[in-house]
């Protein structure tokens, strides 16, 4: 990023002029810096206006009672210190949302990674035919509209008209209300998320696998390692940076779970699939309790930050 924008571009060759005075040099470096900032300016401007400012504003708002009454005149909002955060601690719905989100991440991330890795290893071996076809097949859900996917799955899983239940009935099994049985709704959503996201993990793992030198694997095989031993002691350790990347990106994405429950269950049954992001949306844009929603946003932000740091630690310390 800084390489492309600041410095090197305007200079075609290193300066060889021996007569350059200190003043001229300073002028040149200033001009270089200005050129650099010039190139960076459009991005910096957009970043400040659309990201940095709202991020700071929402932090400030999270310490106020900003709600409907303050919408037309923000001066009506009062600072309430940590009240929003204290209210959150007592909010039963937030507690369910936090538990559900943790469940989704704890089960969904390992499953997605395992499925993605399995697909990548399979496609990387020379055994499988029609590899391009499989690669497209696994990756397609990633680029499809998530809302469209959620709507289609809602139909597929429906208790009365769903294809899956029709199939179950055809082989003599009872119909199951996947999305409206409290204990089954979240597992259903997790499986759909795994199916949707394993393609992304697979592509990254494939790149990682192709970066493992052939010699290492060969050496392991010559030393008498079986397939599993080779995978466990050669492939996995060498994939560590890739694993870390996929774990961090997938976790950060999964912590923001929203569309699937929003479209498929509306957070039900009995709040068993409501997520932190959904609760935040409902409070912020449904009821316009923006102070409270800001507090939820910052709790979620801290959770993502902590989990990311922990994961990076975990994957680094073992090397």
């Amino acid at each position, binding site marked *: 990023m800084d390489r492309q924008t600041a410095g090197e571009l305007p200079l075609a060759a290193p300066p060889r002029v021996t007569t350059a005075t200190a003043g001229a040099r300073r002028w040149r470096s200033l001009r270089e810096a200005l050129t650099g900032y010039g190139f960076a300016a459009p991005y910096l401007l957009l970043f400040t206006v659309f990201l940095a400012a709202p991020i700071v504003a929402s932090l400030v708002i999270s310490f106020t009672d900003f709600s*409907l009454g303050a919408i*037309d005149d923000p001066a009506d909002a009062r600072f309430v210190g940590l009240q929003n955060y204290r209210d959150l601690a007592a909010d039963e*719905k937030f507690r369910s949302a936090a538990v559900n989100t943790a469940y989704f991440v704890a089960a969904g991330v390992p499953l997605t990674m395992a499925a993605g890795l399995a697909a990548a290893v399979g496609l990387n071996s020379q055994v499988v035919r029609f590899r391009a076809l499989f690669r497209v097949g696994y990756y397609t859900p990633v680029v499809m509209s998530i809302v469209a996917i959620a709507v289609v799955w809602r139909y597929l899983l429906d*208790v009365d008209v769903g294809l899956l239940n029709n199939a179950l009935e055809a082989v003599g099994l009872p119909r199951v209300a996947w999305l409206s049985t*409290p204990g089954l709704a979240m597992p259903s959503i997790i499986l759909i998320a795994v199916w949707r996201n394993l393609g992304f993990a697979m592509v990254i793992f494939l790149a990682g696998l192709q970066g493992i030198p052939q010699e290492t694997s060969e050496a392991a095989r010559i030393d008498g390692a079986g397939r599993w031993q080779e995978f466990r002691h050669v492939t996995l350790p060498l994939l560590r940076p890739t694993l870390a990347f996929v774990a961090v990106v997938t976790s950060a994405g999964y912590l923001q779970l929203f569309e699937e429950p929003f479209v498929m269950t509306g957070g039900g*049954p009995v709040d068993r699939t409501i997520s932190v992001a959904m609760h935040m949306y409902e409070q912020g844009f449904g009821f316009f309790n923006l102070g409270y929603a800001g507090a939820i946003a910052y709790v979620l932000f801290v959770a993502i930050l902590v989990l990311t740091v922990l994961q990076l630690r975990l994957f680094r310390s073992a090397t």
Partner: protein
Amino acid sequence: MRSMRWLAAVLAAALLAACGGGGDEGGGTDQPTTITVWAMGAEGEKLNTLATEFTRQNPSITVRVTPITWDVAHQKLITSVAGRQTPDVSQLGTTWMAEFAKLGALEEVPDSIKAADFFEGAWNTNVVEGKAIGVPWYVETRVLYYRTDLASKAGAKMPPASWQELQDAATKIKKVTGKYGIGMLPNAAGTWQEFMPFVWQNGGDVVDASGNPTLNSPQVVEALEQYTAFYKQGLAPKNATQGFAVESGFVAGDYGMFFSGPWHVGILNDTGKRIEGKWAIAPMPREQAGTSFVGGSNLVVFNASNNKDAAWKFVEFAARPETQALWYKTVADLPANKAAWDSGELAAQEDLKVFRAQLDDAKSAPSVATWEQFAAKMNDQIERAALGRSTPQEAAAAMQQDAQGLLLQK
């Protein structure tokens, strides 16, 4: 050079348009005026019919219609108030009135529009802290839909006159369908609208005359007992999936009754031959009263409007009996103005007579700015009780606590 001239022309046009749109003061009858009207869903799509008729009668006023979808309407309207970019006139959901009143965004209704012309329940949704800030546009109320074929096969007495008869009918119909008796929605956004009639029918309410919550009253507990009994006895499906329509099971014959509003007449007629002539509608069962829920939409004028006179003229036009009858023909919205029901199809048709009668005994939610927020919590408690996760007493106590926190706060 040429592009410069083109640019100048565009700028000049934009300037003229800007002056034409916002510059008029007062909207005198002869001065050409444009008013903006926002409307949702089917109303938004068809409103041009009314706009054309209005401009024919008032050639100096042009109506610009902006259709918006229901799912974004609430947000869009709130943001427009925050950004001071409101339309002149808008359609508002009946449960949103207090919120916009709290924002101080709405004009008070002029004396020329009379409360007595409209259904009382519908008019009351416009009254916030004693002031009328909107005019009922169209109404809807819930009635009982039932399958005549299944009911007669089951030997059920139709229509049920009391809760007991309703439950007996559901039990008998269940024996015929083999699945359920009545279709209900324990986990929908509108669950409270299905539940509140039971409370009103039993003489209970959300708040008393002075605005204090009364949700832990015996009337509410009994209403919850009756409502949840349908689920506990397997008479109603517990696991209706989010987003699925109640009529599918009705058409398929999984159950023989459900509560809904006038839109289901059209939906059931559109399902074709399968149940043609095999269903009917009836008023709510009576316990202490036969009260139903009244919803619909109101028309409001924003106080940020520069053309208030023209805006009220449009609202008055839309609320007139002739216009309401025309509007019924256009989108089948039921008129809020009682006089519109006195002639034509609205006076003659059997189904419509049921709605007309029910509208005389229909209530709405109290006009409180935090109502939607409370309603979401109320839905949670109803669902918990319906699924047997809490007793009716516990659910009522929890509702009362939520109401004290949300409905009393100013």
